[in-house]
């Protein structure tokens, strides 16, 4: 079974802090994704990576950056957290050439 894990289920940070969210997948997938999920807005893609060190902006990249130094790990970075970044963050992965994405358990981030 594909397993996607995220470093924290719940996280509380203060405004202005630098925040790291980590995602690890164990199925050698080429593609990895970061989404945020907010009530009424569905899932919105923040960043996408199709290979190590390769990334592509999604629909809402502002205020976020990403890092993929190893194939299995994809990190989302909030350089200076703000209250409007309070959300559920979901990581997903998929093999190259296939669309089905496998999701991690999510991190509920609260910025106070």
């Amino acid at each position: 079974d594909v397993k996607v894990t995220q470093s924290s289920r719940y996280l509380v940070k203060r405004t202005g802090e630098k925040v790291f969210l980590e995602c690890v997948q164990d199925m050698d997938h080429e593609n990895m994704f970061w989404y945020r999920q907010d009530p009424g807005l569905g899932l919105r893609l923040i960043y996408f990576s199709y290979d190590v060190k390769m990334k592509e902006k999604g629909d809402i990249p502002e205020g976020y950056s990403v890092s993929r130094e190893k194939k299995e790990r994809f990190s989302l970075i909030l350089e200076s957290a703000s209250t409007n970044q309070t959300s559920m963050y979901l990581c997903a992965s998929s093999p190259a050439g296939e669309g089905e994405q496998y999701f991690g358990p999510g991190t509920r981030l609260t910025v106070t």
Partner: protein
Amino acid sequence: ELKVEQNPLFLSMQEGKNYTIYCNYSTTSDRLYWYRQDPGKSLESLFVLLSNGAVKQEGRLMASLDTKARLSTLHITAAVHDLSATYFCAGGAQGGSEKLVFGKGTKLTVNP
């Protein structure tokens, strides 16, 4: 740009009844996915539909794809309380991109 619309967004139904969730998409998409999300949990893959006329069934859920009408449906037969969840459809973005575009989700509540 691919857009995916689901309706209804909220659905309250009685146990034992049948209902259908609709997923319309705006431009050509050669693959369509259905996911389920339980409250506070992540997304779980339900169905992958890859060709016109594809039909998949699992228990009381059946999904179909009509690429000519740009429509996928998720039919619920004789609903039970355990089916209460939010259901998302997602289409493959154009040009062979491995990104998915998600609908806003349909929150299903099955009442005894």
